[in-house]
Every structure is written in structure tokens, then in C-alpha cells.
């Protein structure tokens, strides 16, 4: 290969290398950036990431294939309706989120044909709603389960008021002893198996905490 040919290949390589990243930011990067920027409050971004991982893991355990585009977008955006920038006080946050996902997705390369599936999964992620479709069912169960066990207890503790106001640690502990309504919402086989593990975990944490705080009176 002579010098000119090498320069030609090098130039072509540079053009190709520049072409791919020069295209619009991919929707996953855009959604991740959006969630990292707008959903940090009350630890929703971390919760969203856990929901995504857990939903995939539950589906895999049940040998169910999920559309990863739908699940990723739904998991990362499902609580945007409760963030202060997007909430609407008179509407349920699940409905608000489903209606507002275009803010995060409209100018991206997210497949338009999958938007309604994302909206549906977000709309039914609440424990008392009935999800339809695989992505909706596994997001729904992951979302419930993330409110239980070690992750649920850690999240509850993170929200304790830092200046001694409400919610207090004692209130969070008492709430956490009444999770039966949440537990009833779990629908999938793998979700139900994971539920048993998390309920056992949280009982152990709460029993220990009760011992160490005069039955939550000194929290």
C-alpha cells in the first residue's frame, strides 16, 4: 500500500468514525441523561435503574422475553410524573408520566411504534393497577418489590427528614411493618418468589431495629 492509499484509507476511516457518533444522541443516552438530571430528587433515578434490572431478572427467571426498548424507557421514566418539574397535583403520577414521556423521547430515535407500549407500562406500574403485556407486568412487579426488602427499607430511610421533622424514622419503620397491601399486587411467578425473600429480609431488619429502639419508640 503506497502513501497515498494509506492516507485515503485513513481519511475514509476518519469519516466513518466521525459519522456514527455525529448522528443524533441515541434515545437510551438521552433517556438516561434526562433521568439523571431530572429524577434525582427522592432517589427516583436510582429506583428506576433498580426497577429495570429487576424486571429483566424476573422475566428471565420466568423465561419470558421482554422488549428491551419498552422496558428500558418505561423503567427510567415511570416516575417522572411524581418529580416536581412534571407532577400534576390532581392526577395520579402514573398517568402524568405516561402522558409526558414525549418530553424525554420526542426528539430521539426511540421507535415510535413502541410508544404506546411504554405509556401502558408506565400507566399500570402502580401496585393497585392491572398491567397487561409482558413489559407492563414485569415493571409493575419490579416496582412493588423495590419498595420492599433491603432496597425498600434503604429507600424509606433515605427519605427521613434530616431536621427531625416528618417523616421520622419511627414513622417509616411503622409504615414498613404494614406492607401487605403492596405485597398483594405482585403477579408474576418470579415476582412472587422474590417477594418471599424480601418479606423475610425486611422482617429481620425490623425485628432487629425494634430491639435496638425500644420497639421503635426511640427512633
Amino acid at each position: 500500500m503506497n502513501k497515498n492509499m494509506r492516507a485515503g484509507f485513513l481519511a475514509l476511516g476518519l469519516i466513518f468514525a466521525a459519522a456514527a457518533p455525529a448522528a443524533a444522541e441515541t434515545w437510551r443516552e438521552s433517556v438516561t441523561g434526562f433521568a439523571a438530571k431530572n429524577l434525582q430528587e427522592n432517589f427516583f433515578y436510582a429506583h428506576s435503574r433498580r426497577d429495570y434490572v429487576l424486571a429483566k431478572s424476573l422475566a428471565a427467571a420466568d423465561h419470558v422475553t421482554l422488549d428491551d426498548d419498552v422496558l428500558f424507557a418505561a423503567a427510567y421514566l415511570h416516575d417522572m410524573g411524581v418529580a416536581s418539574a412534571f407532577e400534576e397535583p390532581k392526577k395520579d403520577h402514573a398517568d402524568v408520566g405516561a402522558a409526558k414521556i414525549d418530553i424525554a423521547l420526542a426528539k430521539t430515535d426511540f421507535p415510535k411504534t413502541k410508544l404506546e407500549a411504554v405509556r401502558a407500562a408506565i400507566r399500570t406500574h402502580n401496585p393497585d393497577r392491572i398491567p397487561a403485556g409482558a413489559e407492563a407486568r414485569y415493571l409493575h412487579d419490579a416496582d412493588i418489590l423495590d419498595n420492599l426488602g433491603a432496597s425498600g427499607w434503604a429507600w424509606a430511610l433515605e427519605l427521613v427528614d434530616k431536621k427531625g421533622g416528618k417523616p421520622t424514622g419511627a414513622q417509616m419503620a411503622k409504615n414498613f411493618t404494614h406492607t401487605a397491601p403492596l405485597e398483594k399486587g405482585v403477579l408474576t411467578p418470579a415476582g412472587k418468589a422474590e417477594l418471599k425473600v424480601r418479606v423475610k429480609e425486611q422482617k429481620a431488619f425490623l425485628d432487629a431495629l425494634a430491639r435496638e429502639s425500644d420497639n421503635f419508640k426511640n427512633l
Partner: protein
Amino acid sequence: MKNSACASLLLLALMGPSAAAEPWRDKVTAFAAGNLKHPAWGFSHSQRDYALAKSLAAADHVTLDEDVIFAAAYLHDMAAFPQWAEDKKDHADAAAEKIDIVLAGTDFPLAKMEALRAAIRTHMFARDPAGPEARYLHDADALDWLGAIGVARLIALADPKGGKPTAPDMLKRIQDNMKLVPPRVVTPAGKARVTPLVAEEKAFLNALARESDNFKNL
């Protein structure tokens, strides 16, 4: 007349020499409840330290001076709050100096003030306490950094607005305490409680690691 004279005498006898002084326990409790509001080192932490110190001492058949342990438990962290903190002084030393703000004008026994200051000064696990009240307060305070309660206190400090400290920052504090605190516990009853408390923390951290992609999603 006779009855009313007897009643007056009885009242005087009951009031005794400190008739004008405020009951110190009421004042200390009200001060701590009203001013020491914090999820990790507030009023409830003082209540736990008091109860645990007494329980540990009882397990070791050690008698504590109730006045000293009560006042020390309820006031030991007062200088961790901005109103009483001093920039260049550890909060334990600052609190030991400032307890008069709360106890002056009360009927707290003056003869016990130095034992109280000493217990407050050495309450942190890195320090070396002397005397029973100081030793049991020190261990109660150390053990309150461990177990389910240690986890709860520290995670509650994570900033919900996405600032510092983050949840992973607090996780590191929990892990650090699991290493640093146990060797500093000095009493027999305190030492007996370390292993189960650390086991509780390990169980929690193992579960949390499993549920958060090894802490990455916190």
C-alpha cells in the same frame, strides 16, 4: 391554723435548699427534645444511649450514678448542632464545656459536674473512657453506630435532592464503622453485643448488594 402551719413546714421540707432551682431532669429532657433534632444524633439517639448504657451496666452488674448517666446521655451530642458547635473543637470537648448552658440554674448536683463532663468528653468510640458512667456511655454510643440502628441512622443522612452525602457515601460510612467500632468497645456486656450487631449489618448489606447491582444502583 395548726394544719396550715404543718402544711407549710412540709412544703418547705420538700422543697429543701434548692427550692428556687428548676428540676434538672425536666430541663435536660425538654432541652434535648426541643433542640436536638436529627435523624442520627438527635433526641432519639440520646434516649437509646441512655437505655443501652443502663442495660449494659446491669448485665455487667455495675452500678451507675443515675444523675451522671442521664445528663451525659442526653447532652453528649449537643455541640454537634450549629448553635453550640465550635469550628476548631471536637463536638465532645465543646459539649463538655457547654453543658452549663443547660444545667445552670437547675438542681443538678454540682459535685457530679466533672464526672458528667468526663463522660461527655470521652463518649466517642475513638476515645478512652474512665469511670463506669463514661465507659458505659462510650459503649452505648459505639454500639448505636452498629446493627440495624447504625444502618438506619446513617442511611437517613443521604441527601434526597441528589447532593452530598449520597447513599453510596453513607454506605461507606456503615462499612467503615463495621471495621473501626468493634475493637473500641470496652465493657464485657458491650463486647458481647458486637457480633450480633455486625451480623445484622452484614445481612442487610448482602441483601442490599443483591438488590442494587452490588450497590451501583443506589
